[in-house]
């Protein structure tokens, strides 16, 4: 079920599409926050933002406090300056693969002015140059402005630059969009928050800021929310593609949620991880281990806060994350949601204590 019932008096809309079409670089997460506020307003007990910009949605007021975190920010580019010919100079925001930038349509600033990331015609380059990956300092955005002054009217330094990628269903199961890392997590968390309250839980849905630049929002939220345990829901790399042998594939699209063992920021809490795997097995939910030990998720930001918070990451496999067009499997999204529901239910019933 991709379409959420938006409730009486609101036009039907597709939340995942809306979330991926919204633009939110690290530190500038307002658009995604607005989408979530619109969807969740009036449905959760409490909806507020904290000092760093996390959107916190409380559901229920039971004794067991659980954070489920999904990050709102995405990787992209930011305007760094203008040059005399009217071009915008840009810098990367978050870990972008610069190889995917040239030849790309983008949207600049809040008014979303169309622009392009050009590259000198390959005909004009010598052989070595034509083989060279263009570093971001040589890239620029061309909005058609003819002078520095005109370029400055279009965008100021610090304005965001986003990929102009449309949301699209490639098949019954696979969707293509920008920023699936981590709008899939935001989508799953929004769905969890719309579930009926669980008597013994205080579900603290945290839509975090600044994940892509160092898991910073999640850390702040963990400090003031003081949860008993925390789950991060993220998008993770699926490298089940030609040229990559099975141990290196990280995850496979369509094989269910990826339970993480460790990443570059945390070794996952063993009992939560085992419990997740047990639940998936008992209830016949497809699942897989994430077979990569690098990168980071909000769990890594949360677990070291206060006196230590048991934390684990569950991820939705996404091909081509951190590039303009990523793919995710809707069944994986549903199964991730199912697994998290099972975990919350078992916490609610007291069947599991970390």
């Amino acid at each position: 079920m991709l379409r959420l019932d938006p409730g009486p008096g609101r036009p039907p809309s597709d939340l995942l599409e809306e979330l991926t079409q919204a633009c939110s670089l690290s530190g500038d997460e307002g658009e995604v926050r607005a989408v979530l506020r619109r969807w969740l307003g009036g449905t959760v007990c409490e909806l507020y933002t904290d000092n760093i910009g996390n959107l916190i949605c409380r559901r229920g007021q039971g004794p067991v406090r659980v954070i489920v975190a999904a990050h709102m920010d995405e990787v992209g580019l930011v305007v760094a300056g203008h040059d005399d010919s009217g071009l915008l100079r840009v810098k990367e925001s978050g870990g972008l693969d610069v190889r995917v930038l040239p030849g790309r349509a983008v949207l600049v600033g809040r008014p979303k002015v169309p622009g392009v990331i050009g590259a000198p015609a390959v005909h004009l380059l010598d052989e070595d140059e034509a083989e060279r990956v263009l570093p971001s300092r040589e890239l620029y955005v061309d909005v058609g402005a003819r002078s520095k002054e005109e370029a400055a009217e279009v965008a100021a330094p610090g304005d965001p630059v986003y990929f102009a990628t449309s949301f699209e269903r490639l098949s019954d199961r696979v969707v293509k969009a920008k920023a699936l890392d981590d709008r899939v997590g935001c989508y799953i968390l929004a769905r969890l928050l719309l579930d009926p309250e669980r008597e013994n839980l205080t579900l603290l849905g945290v839509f975090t800021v600044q994940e892509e630049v160092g898991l910073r929002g999640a850390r702040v939220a963990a400090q003031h929310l003081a949860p008993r345990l925390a789950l991060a829901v993220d998008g993770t790399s699926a490298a089940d593609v030609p040229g990559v042998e099975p141990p290196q594939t990280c995850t496979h699209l369509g094989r269910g949620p990826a339970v993480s063992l460790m990443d570059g920021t945390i070794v996952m809490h063993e009992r939560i991880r085992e419990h997740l795997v047990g639940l998936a097995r008992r209830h016949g939910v497809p699942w897989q281990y994430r077979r990569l030990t690098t990168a980071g998720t909000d769990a890594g930001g949360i677990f070291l806060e206060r006196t230590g918070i048991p934390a684990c990451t569950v991820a939705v496999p996404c091909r081509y994350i951190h590039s303009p067009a990523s793919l995710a499997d809707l069944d994986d999204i549903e199964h991730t949601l199912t697994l998290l529901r099972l975990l919350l239910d078992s916490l609610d019933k007291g069947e599991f204590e970390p």
Partner: protein
Amino acid sequence: MPVEVVLLDILEFLRELCRTAAVRGYEEPSCAALGRLWGPWLDETRTTRLGSFVGLARGRGPEPRPRFAAVAHLDAVGFVVTRVEDGGFLRLAKVGGVDRRLLLGQEVEVLAPGGPLPGVIGAKPPHLSSGEERKRVVPVEELYVDLGLDPAVVRERVPPGTPVHYRRQVLTLRNGRVSGTYLDDAAGLAVLAVALEELRSLGHEADFIVIGSAGEEAGRFAGAVTAASDVRPHAAVAVDVTFGSYPGQGDPTGTFPLGGGPAIGLGPNCHPILTRLFRTVADEAGIPYGLEVMPGSSGTDAWGVQTVCGGIPTAVLSIPLRYMHTPVETVSLDDIRLAGHLLAQAASRVDWAFVEGLSCFD
């Protein structure tokens, strides 16, 4: 005529031709589009054996009339599917001078027989690539198209040889600039449309023949050469794109500012008298232009056309375009309008006296 109206028409024309542009062999939708868009100004139209579109705007002179042809190409650079890998991933081969630096992560459209399929070009992800690998451009052989479809469905729907293109898009930028996929050579086709419209009211002695040529990007100028042999023009001009001045370039030689008017070619491919006609007309009408020095092949259909039918005097007129052979090729609508105006003015002066003068070299 209000300028805005003309700009809007050109933009719509570009949208249409960018949408139909395809690799060699798949020019039929573009021919159909030209039939619709050029049709109102043409007295006769047909498609040649090799898939070029030919249209005739009859001149006012008594028969037999001289024939002046303008040619712009229909086809675009792209790929064909060579193989379907396990997992349903498509391997590709290039058709024409595709820029390999920017293939990774591009959205494409696979023109499967049962209907187009959207996809994304992928490769081994960066975190599994070595530092060296991340610094190099990924070879086409290591790239693939991911359709997000079941492998069995892919095998059924996508036979080897299926053409693949960049996902088409046309964006309007500031100052009448347009960025689009396959403006090379939708821009040239648009110049011919502007000229046809103007010639209708201007009047012309000679027959004006417009050719939308097949297969320019695939090499050997097959469509233009055979269409020229068919039409046997007394003179011909290729209208294509050239390098727009681009950001960060060192030496500006050989590039032309967007909005500064078309470039007129100079060199062995550019007949001196025909070329002088274009320059004289531009000077008299106050049309700005650049001069593009082409010491060898112009790389345009004119290079092929020049040496058929016992020799056809040719000229080259080019629209400055930034980011050639990328999905975001960028032109100025002003340049298209100016080039169309120049072409119409020049065509209106072609008569028997001019044609006879073409063999009188100094």
